[in-house]
């Protein structure tokens, strides 16, 4: 009984810290303006929407990997799946959860778009360096 109680309480705090951790990762790129090129290719004008995430991650897979953002992208991807699961399970009990999770998923999409922007810039830089050689 006690173990079950500790398990539920620790899962709740784990969820709370996980949400905050992912939000802190996303907050670090929220002020980064997207380049015109990435805006064109992703279709994101100023604000991303929840539906943009899948498309942006597909584009990310086409772009050569960058070690620096790999772990952050994995964490945000987990957060996105977590939000989808939460919405499917609980939005019929708490309807406001739907709009909250969509708002959060829009943040995930913007984070992924910033990562795409950085990958493109990084690859350009690498190509320019190769040309110099």
């Amino acid at each position, binding site marked *: 009984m006690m173990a*079950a109680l*500790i398990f539920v309480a620790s899962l709740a705090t784990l969820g709370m810290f996980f949400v905050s951790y992912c939000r802190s990762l996303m907050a670090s790129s929220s002020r980064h303006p997207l380049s015109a090129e990435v805006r064109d290719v992703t279709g994101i004008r100023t604000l991303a929407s929840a539906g943009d995430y899948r498309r942006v991650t597909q584009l990310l897979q086409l772009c050569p990997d960058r070690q620096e953002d790999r772990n952050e992208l994995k964490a945000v991807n987990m957060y996105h799946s977590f939000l989808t699961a939460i919405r499917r399970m609980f939005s019929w009990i708490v309807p406001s959860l739907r709009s909250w999770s969509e708002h959060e998923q829009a943040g995930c999409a913007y984070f992924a778009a910033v990562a795409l922007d950085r990958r493109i810039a990084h690859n350009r830089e690498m190509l320019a360096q190769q040309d110099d050689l």
Partner: protein
Amino acid sequence: MPGPTGLIIWFLGTAFELLFVVCSLARNSFLRYFFLNLYLLLSTTVSIGRFFILWNYGVRSDEYMYFYYYSDALLTLALFVALISLYSHVLGELRAGEYLKWGAVFLLLGTAGFSYAVVAQSADRLSTNFAYELSQNLYFVGLVLTYILWGAVLKLHETRTRVVQIILSLGLYFSAYAASYALMNFSEKYSLIRYLSPALGCFLPLSWSLTILRYSEESRLAPARLVAVPR
């Protein structure tokens, strides 16, 4: 000896602990986060010591058992001190250092007293039981303290990215550890659960290292973005 998976997790954990110290030195943050570095250096030393004792005496030996429980209590104590040092980072501007120091000592003595009261009835291996009980209780106190610290971060509008992410990683570690501990009480027979808490031991130093590597001390966050539900 643990199996190959257990050994890989063990070595990875030790390597990540060293990585944090190296990253701190490389980014000139060793002294700023001295107690975090001290904890991970101590953890590396303990890890190496445990390996040698395990290698020489075996997992069922008294030597290994004593070393394991006493070093675990020592490490938990070091983690407690590291957590208090994070409090002084967050509450630094309030000039609450003296209160914090006495509060930490009081809490530590209280936890030690409670642990002693719990194990005082059993006459055999009193000191080992005490070390084990103290370690478990300090973990629980650590989880509660991290939760309170996170509340303070939000209330005081802390903006330093490094401090925020270090605290969040610690919160994730403590809560995941508590969950895995409770899960282990349900069913210890599943091997996956046995690997869970050593794997969590890898997460904390890795996440701290990435934070130190990725963000400079000047990086700032908008605190409003950290709150899941806007107020």
